[in-house]
């Protein structure tokens, strides 16, 4: 396969990542379902991962990829705990609506 690094300018990756990140942010603000919100957060994480990998590839430095590796570890842990929390909240309020979780206000 032809080397993408030569034919695709790095700016495109920057653009793609920021767009992906903003879609994630908008999703978090748009949706009320906590599971979807969690997925949108994953989307944001992935946009950052993509950026890191692109930089690492263009700068010929493997450190960025190692970082992505650690981000994946943290994301996995986060999802596991987050979903467990959602399950346990659902058990209490029978809903995954974010607006049903206002109890801490008082």
């Amino acid at each position, binding site marked *: 396969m032809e080397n993408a690094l030569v034919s695709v300018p790095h700016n495109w990756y920057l653009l793609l990542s920021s767009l992906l990140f903003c879609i994630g942010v908008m999703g978090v*603000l748009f949706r009320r379902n906590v599971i979807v919100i969690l997925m949108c957060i994953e989307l944001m994480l992935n946009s950052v991962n993509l950026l890191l990998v692109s930089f690492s590839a263009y700068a010929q430095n493997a450190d960025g990829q190692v970082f992505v590796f650690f981000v994946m570890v943290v994301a996995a842990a986060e999802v596991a705990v987050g979903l467990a929390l959602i399950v346990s909240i659902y058990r209490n309020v029978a809903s995954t609506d974010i*607006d049903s979780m*206002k109890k801490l206000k008082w």
Partner: protein
Amino acid sequence: MNDQITNYSLLTILSILIPVFPLVGFLINGLLGKKVPEPISGWIGSIAVLASFVCAAAIFFTLPATESLSFNLFNWIAYANLNISFGFLIDPLTITMLLVITGIGFLIHLYSISYMHGDEGFTRFFTYLNLFIFFMLLLVMGNNYLVMFIGWEGVGLCSYLLIGFWFKEHENNNAAKKAFIMNRVGDLGFLLGMFALLMLFGTLDYASVAQAVQGYPINDGLIIGITLLLFIGAMGKSAQIPLYTWLPDAMAGPTPVSALIHAATMVTAGIYMIVRSNVLFAMAPATLDVILIVGVATCVMAAIIGLMQNDIKKVLAYSTVSQLGLMFVALGLGAFSSGMFHVVTHAFFKALLFLGSGSVIHALHGEQDIRKMGGLSKYIKITFITFMIGSLAISGIPPFAGFFSKDEILAKAFEHSPAIWIIVSLSSALTAFYMFRLVYITFSGNYRGTEETRSKIHESPALITIPLIILAILSIIGGFMGLPAITGLTHKFSNYLSSVTGAAAGILPEAHHLSHATEYVLIGVAVLAAIVSILIARYMYVTKGQLPANSDAELNGLQKLVSNKFYVDEVYNAVFVKPVVKLSTLIYEYVDKLVVDNVVNGVAKVTDLSGRTLRLMQTGSTTFYLLAMVCGIVVLFVIRLLI
């Protein structure tokens, strides 16, 4: 040589032990408090002071009069050029004061065991008393002004605590506060004097100051300023005009306290301080003149007020003020050793008189008004005889102690100027008069109290009478320490102190000595004046049987003025107290209530209001929070882009 060194190290240990004993007594009584049963705490206190007395006596007998012992225990304040150590100085002056404080202190402790019997604050009383002795010892033992100042403030505190000892009565608390506040005025002077000394000489050490000051010309403005400031301190502590009104009020405390603190020891601290800095004061003759004037004025004024007092302790209090004035006269004349001599003899007979009056009060179950006494000589013989001896001593009748010391000061006064001699002689004649007025009204004639109280009059127990007898003996023989020059014998006391006061004597102009004939005449006149005064008192109060008036209405204008103490308290009230109270009220009304309160409440109101408003933002909706967060990030980016 080697022998001497071991001797000195022994003396060092002994002198460190002196203040330690009362401190230990204070700690035991103070920490155990009511757990110590009544007589035991008294004995602990007494034995602690006795032990100090023994140490002081040992030093007195081993340390030659020409030697002094100065040592530093530790470096206290070391900062840049400032270097102040915590150290002791043991010389004849210190030893004299030590013997007076611990000796008379011990007798008064003994006396108190019986006098304070049954008081609910018995242990507390001895705790304070031991603490007082500790601070007083610190005051006289320090080798620099700062250590003296610790003691100075400490005795002030103890004086406050003991005047207000029976704090359940409001009047006593007021007297205590008055004493404390008036002393603060003097202490400020002392403090400023110390700062000035530090600025000028960079040291507070007695020896260094005495050495440094001799490089200045006589009557240098700075030295006059410093000595005046120090004298203000002495004024407060030793109750001189204008800071004397606290001492008569201080009689609110228990009688042993009046005897120990307000007659024998603490009030003489001012005199000690000036004698201690005699070189400094000798370099400022102008200050000595001020001291002389203040001393004379106090001496006369207090004696006049003493004529019309009806409370047995108040009479003695004014007599103390007057005698302190006499001591300052001696200092003002540059006769430092004479002043100290009078301090010592005065300590003997004034302690005796106060303890005697305590015995009278004890016998009469708390009665202090002499108009309700009379004819007591029949009931309380020992008290009467010892009180009589004290009165003779203070009146200056030979051969009692007061005669010698007073005569010495009078002779010095005559050398200086006959006018001063006349005024001081007059005041000492007044002293003889009011003392015997007191004696006759109290002890002769018929008992004027109720029949019921009369049957209860009893002589005090041995613990009270023994100190009285010892002090009476001291009042008789105490004067022989300093025989006048005409007898041809040596003045032992003056010789003993000469290593301390000698330096000042070298600076002051040599006074022309009186001829023997003049001196005989002076003595004769003084004694005659005293005897005549006594006889007048006898005529008025025994032969004619007069009694002091019961109310102001029976008095003429002059008598009224004297009886009301020249209205000095009222004037102070109007000039100092009232404006301060007014100002405080004003500040309270306008600054405190309007400004401070509103500011404080305003802060609370603003917090409350903003809290109520901002609370509305806390919707609890996570989406809203996230939205706010995103907006925040956007704003941050915009700011980043714009800058």
